[in-house]
């Protein structure tokens, strides 16, 4: 055959392949349901991959949200109506979950929980008081952030002295001091009840040692079972037929981890995903008016901040801190970086956390002139040179840092931005090895007591910015140990005022939790630890 025949053959072959492929893609057109997709299944796109399934090791918000759906806890947050037909969690109210009821002793140091007699794990073994005791002791001995969350941040000394199971349906906790957030700590996924038999058969529970089996498997009795798990890629959950509570509204949930922002946008637009979590705000902004989707925003206890290391010159001078705080273009940032999905505040406690004093945390007005004056008054020698560390995988923080860098030049502050990969940022941040740090943060337990302990208690090793406000610690101690919420709120309000006078850190804005829902989603509920059980999508 001559070469021209070869050539035409080849061309025909290529064309055929392309046609076949294109034709095949025509059948499952994106956006409409193909055979196999019904309201019994919901697809969730999640921007942040998960790192572990072990409640005794999970630290970050997304891991905790996933774990919450596969395990049972003693207590949980109540639910209230949200905006636009959705519902959301109520951080101020703790209600029974697995525990049917509880009693608190007079001195607030003994909690007695009553469990149902017939709750079981997914393998049929009883989810009883022994299991609770085992799970709690496992977390306490883990030495990870779970121990922190479970005890609502009260670690010096550890809050829980002992946990006993006098009979199959009774659990008794002995605390070494009263703590108003104890029940909230139990509601975090750190309070998940794990199946002792399964854990013991797979590595056991050894202090300070991670359990590799539990990191990629589930041994629980929650609303959903783990049907399949491909870390960083896909998770499929199926309703647990033996669940002690109400069956979930959508029996099957498929979670896809989509880390590329452009993919998130594409899939939301084409309605390939019913719910999209963690979409970057600029993409949300473009999709806002699109007919495909609706945006749901909820107040969440998370905020963007510029942390200042209070013990490093010239940041140890309150006037310098005040100047820097006044020189941040809050309104501009809220509009252009957060696209309006947030609110401004100035205080130690984020809106959305119990104990946040809204009236007392009014935001500050940007005032560059005053800032320049304060710098002059502060008597600092020469131009101020500072370095801020940022996590490269948090684009908002990078944008913020860049923005602030430009504005601070006008008041004579030369800010260098050091963008670090997460493996470098995290150790430096938690170790306090920085002058300034720009990041998104939020308390693990949405309460003022927890947040203040972590970020403002003098001498607390987790207070990496070394913030220390005179007089605040005693008030904090009182607020945490009282069981009267009104008294606690008053004390937190006082602490807020003391804190504001010192300008220890710059909360740039409170970030709302933004969820993108396809128009077929019929019910959505927001909670700090997302609860899929009431989410539904129509055919």
């Amino acid at each position, binding site marked *: 055959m001559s070469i021209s025949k070869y050539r035409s053959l080849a061309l025909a072959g290529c064309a055929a392949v392309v046609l076949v492929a294109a034709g095949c893609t025509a059948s499952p057109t994106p956006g409409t349901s193909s055979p196999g997709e019904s309201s019994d299944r919901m697809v969730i796109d999640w921007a942040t991959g998960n790192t572990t399934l072990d409640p005794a090791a999970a630290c970050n918000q997304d891991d905790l949200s996933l774990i919450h759906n596969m395990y049972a806890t003693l207590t949980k947050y109540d639910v209230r109506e949200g905006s636009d037909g959705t519902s959301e969690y109520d951080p101020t109210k703790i209600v029974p979950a697995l525990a049917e009821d509880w009693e608190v002793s007079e001195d607030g140091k003994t909690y007695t929980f009553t469990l149902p007699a017939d709750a079981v794990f997914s393998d049929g073994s009883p989810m009883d008081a022994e299991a609770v005791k085992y799970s709690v002791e496992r977390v306490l001995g883990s030495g990870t952030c779970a121990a922190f969350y479970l005890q609502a941040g009260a670690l010096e000394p550890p809050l829980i002295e002992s946990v006993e199971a006098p009979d199959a349906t009774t659990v008794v906790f002995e605390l070494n001091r009263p703590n108003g957030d104890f029940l909230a700590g139990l509601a975090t996924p750190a309070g998940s009840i794990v199946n002792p038999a399964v854990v013991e058969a797979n590595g056991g529970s050894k202090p300070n040692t991670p359990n590799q089996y539990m990191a990629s498997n589930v041994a629980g009795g929650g609303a959903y079972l783990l049907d399949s798990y491909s870390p960083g890629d896909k998770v499929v959950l199926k309703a647990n037929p033996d669940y002690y509570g109400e069956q979930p509204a959508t029996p099957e949930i498929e979670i896809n981890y989509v880390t590329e922002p*452009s993919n998130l946008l594409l899939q939301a637009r084409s309605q390939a995903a019913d719910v999209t979590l963690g979409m970057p705000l600029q993409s949300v902004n473009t999709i806002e008016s699109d007919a495909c989707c609706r945006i749901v925003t909820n107040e969440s206890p998370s905020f963007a901040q510029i942390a200042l290391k209070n013990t490093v010159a010239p940041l140890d001078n309150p006037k310098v801190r005040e100047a820097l705080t006044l020189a941040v273009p809050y309104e501009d940032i809220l509009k*252009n970086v957060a696209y309006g999905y947030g609110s401004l505040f100035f205080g130690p406690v984020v809106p959305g956390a119990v104990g946040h004093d809204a009236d007392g945390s009014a935001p500050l007005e940007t005032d560059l002139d005053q800032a320049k004056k304060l710098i002059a008054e502060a008597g600092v020698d020469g131009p101020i040179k500072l370095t801020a560390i940022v996590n490269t995988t948090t684009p908002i923080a990078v944008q913020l840092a860049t923005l602030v860098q*430009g504005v601070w030049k006008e008041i004579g502050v030369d800010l260098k931005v050091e963008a670090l990969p997460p493996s470098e940022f995290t150790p430096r941040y938690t170790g306090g090895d920085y002058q300034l740090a720009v990041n998104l943060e939020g308390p693990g337990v949405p309460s003022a007591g927890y947040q203040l302990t972590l970020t403002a208690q003098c001498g607390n090793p987790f207070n990496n910015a070394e913030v220390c406000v005179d007089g605040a610690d005693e008030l904090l101690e009182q607020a945490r140990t009282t069981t009267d919420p009104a008294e606690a709120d008053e004390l937190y309000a006082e602490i807020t005022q003391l804190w504001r006078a010192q300008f220890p850190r710059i909360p740039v804005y409170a970030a709302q939790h933004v969820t993108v829902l396809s128009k077929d989603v019929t019910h959505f509920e927001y909670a700090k630890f997302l609860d899929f059980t009431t989410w539904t999508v129509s055919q």
Partner: protein
Amino acid sequence: MVASGALLAVVLLAALGPLFWTVSPNQVNLAETLQPMSSAHPMGTDDLGRDVFARFLEGARLSLMVGAVVVLAGATIGGALGVVAGMSRQPVSGFLGWVINTLLSFPTLMLAMAVSVALGAGVFAGAAGLVLAAIPWYARVLRSEVLRIMSRPSVEAAVVAGAGSIRIARRNVIPHLMPTLLIQAASNFGAAILTLAALGFVGLGAQPPQAEWGSMITGGLQYALSGQWWIGVFPGLGLIVLVTATTVLADRARDILDPRGSYVRS
């Protein structure tokens, strides 16, 4: 000729551009974010209101500089390694050959990424990674070239006459290496620029707010799908033009200097 013209144009733009286009590449302007192309902003503005054209020029400068540094360092170190490996006897020659082969067995991007992370992100670390990845290519090509030259009668004669290695290197070997070196450098240049962009895409290499074509493309990806395509498309075009120009010139160089072309490009 188109290629040399294009390359020259890019170099001139990068070098002289700031003289004419005085807008700062890092000037943030929140009032003018995501503006399309206009006379004030020939390539529009990005998500922080920065002028894309100014950042394009800055990125061009960065790519050219890093490319040049990588080629110079790679050629010098890799070339020296290759010459020594080719001229020495066993076991040194074998050992060096082993080192070269080991480095070659790593995917280039992986090596650059790993070194980048080790040295802590940033352009300098990225360049170091690129240099390390480029060295074995020069070394291998030059080593085989040196071996070829060493087997020439003129060189063998010099060895027999008792000339020292350094003298032989200087007189007989190195002068003949230039063509090979140039060809390798030309293709290395383009590859280095692309790898730097790849590092930027992954989040290593140049860090914000540094304007670098690769990270500009990443940043522009999201906006491209919402209609603001100019942020990512122009840097990409810049990369294509620059690298194509250097590749074509490399080909031309090879056609002229080594028409028999007996080895594999890097």
